[in-house]
């Protein structure tokens, strides 16, 4: 195992940021890094630093489209914050938790409250009741289509054809999050069990990606769509998606093992290059080059799990945040 002390390090270049509470999400709105927290705040860094009290409770999930971050709160509100720190309440559902939120093209917005998914597009708002609580929402890379993860599978709906019958992709078990591949050919879900499931959308072919010691919480495709990077194990797990069958019958690559018993808690693929950032349960952050597995230390272990990672669109800055509220920016 490589000791982090012997690795090339950029840790001294990190600009530390104290958010004050559990960093639920990090994102970039243009040049500005923003952090959404468990105390309901959105911290906007940049020329005009702002701390927006968006929710009276915790932020449960956040989505962004580069122009605004939309936060879902356990106060029943959905709030959009822009890079000037201006906030706008989009939805109010008093007494409920808004569990999930996703942003699509042309300002399309989807969110879920318990078993109900709501979607708002330029044409209006529609809603769909599911047989079980929604585990995750994802927009397809093209078209106004969303995938809803839930117990025993995922449901696909077209937002501009609300009368069409939703398409159910069935697989036993509880699905707690989902993601389309960048080419739109595959849908991946993270499950309650320490495993991922996937479907090839053209024919519904199943893909099981298992072998994890713990639940997988963070997944992302590389910019070229060739690899799916995931947390959940001691190493970053990379499933090959180059071929038409995805990872079926193929072994994953294992890169960048953590120290001792620590596991990878967050991953974020670089928007341009074959590089990814990996955050660990001990607070360490590493940059990993996929071609040869070369590592650069971006942040030393702090003791608190890394809970959020995001790259700026140009790939020049990495934002990270951890459960104890410590966050930072690393300019490359």
């Amino acid at each position, binding site marked *: 195992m490589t000791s982090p002390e012997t690795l090339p390090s950029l840790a001294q270049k990190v600009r530390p940021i104290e958010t004050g*509470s*559990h960093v*639920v999400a990090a994102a970039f709105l243009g040049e500005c890094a923003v952090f959404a927290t*468990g*105390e309901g705040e959105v911290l906007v860094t940049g020329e005009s630093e702002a701390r927006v009290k968006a929710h009276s*409770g*915790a*932020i*449960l999930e956040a989505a962004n489209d580069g122009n605004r971050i939309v936060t879902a709160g*356990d106060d029943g509100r959905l709030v959009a914050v822009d890079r000037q720190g201006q906030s706008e309440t989009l939805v109010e559902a008093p*007494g409920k*938790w808004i*569990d999930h939120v996703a942003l699509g093209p042309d300002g399309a917005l989807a969110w879920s409250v*318990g*078993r109900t998914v709501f979607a708002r597009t330029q044409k209006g708002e529609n809603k769909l009741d599911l047989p*079980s*609580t929604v585990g995750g929402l994802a927009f397809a890379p093209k078209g106004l289509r969303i995938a809803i993860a839930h*117990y025993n599978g995922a449901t696909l709906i077209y937002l501009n054809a609300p009368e069409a019958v939703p398409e159910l992709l069935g697989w*036993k*078990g*509880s699905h707690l999050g989902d993601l389309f591949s960048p080419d739109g050919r595959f849908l991946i879900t993270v*499950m*309650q*069990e*320490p*495993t991922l499931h996937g479907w090839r959308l053209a024919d519904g072919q199943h893909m099981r990606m298992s072998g994890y010691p*713990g*639940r997988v*919480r963070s997944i992302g495709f590389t910019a070229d769509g060739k690899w799916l990077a995931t947390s959940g194990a001691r190493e970053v797990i990379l499933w090959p998606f180059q071929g038409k069958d995805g990872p079926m019958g193929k072994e994953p690559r294992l890169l960048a093992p953590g120290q001792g018993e620590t596991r990878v808690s967050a991953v974020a693929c670089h928007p341009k290059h074959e590089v990814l950032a990996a955050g660990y349960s001990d607070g360490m952050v590493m940059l990993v080059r996929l071609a040869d597995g070369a590592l650069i230390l971006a942040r030393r272990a702090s003791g608190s799990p890394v809970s959020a990672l995001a790259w700026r669109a140009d790939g020049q800055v990495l934002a990270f945040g951890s459960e104890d509220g410590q966050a930072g920016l690393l300019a490359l």
Partner: protein
Amino acid sequence: MSAKIPVTVLTGYLGAGKTTLLNRILSEPHGKKFAVIVNEFGEIGIDNELVVGADEEVFEMNNGCVCCTVRGDLIRIIDGLLKRRGRFDGILVETTGLADPAPVAQTFFLDDTVGERTALDAVVTVADAKWLKDRLRDAPEAKNQIAFADVILLNKADLVNPDELRDVELRIRAINPYARIHHTTRCEVAIGSVLGQGAFDLERILAIEPAFLEEDHHHHDEEVQSIALSSEKPLDPDRFFAWVQELVAREGPKILRSKGILSFKDDPQRFVFQGVHMVLDGDHQREWRADEKRESRIVFIGRELDAEAIEKGFKSSVA
């Protein structure tokens, strides 16, 4: 790693007084803050800042075991609560009167995030002293809640005479001889008898002694029963684990709770375990003390258990 957040589960049949107990815990001057998870239909009049509605979604785990169920809503809610963990010191989960406590308890052992950050402290069951006997007859849920309990509040004790109270207590003991029983009126009980029990904490499994045994009055509940076994001879660990794992894999749906303190051959340490259905959690606990009787004791509480076969299996693991 900071300490795990304790979770207390409050169960009890409809009308027994769960909400009264919940409000009592919340209003005592203990200086602690709680996050309260209630079922959506019973959240009337709970005076607390952080109250979340649950919807009792029971999910099967994808491992081919029908009794390995978890509460999907609890996982979701606890994940959310953990994002502001500084706001509370403990979590109280109130279930509906019809809820099965097992998926609630198993959530704390089968979900890794929940299990890492929180610890199930105890299952507290509120029972109605006047009506419990009827419910044990007609409601399987009521029987489960008694069988599962670590602490039982025999509430509304003022509404029955001492003979009736004794009779209902014997009925409880026939199902669950190990729970701590408190006779209460309007759930008046010292908070320390309900919270901080560590009932699932391997460190705190001290002894397995039935709290109360009077063979003369022992009512054998025809369906739910407890089987306690002991051996003064040390056990062979390989044989014991092979047997117990096979037993819970096969009989898991029938076994509600299990607990054991074991003395293995050539092992200076006590091994302790506790389980819910087929989910077992066990570890070496500490060295046997010189003045301590090295005896293995195990107990199973379940329905329609084959006592003879279980005893035979246990005996066969003696070294």
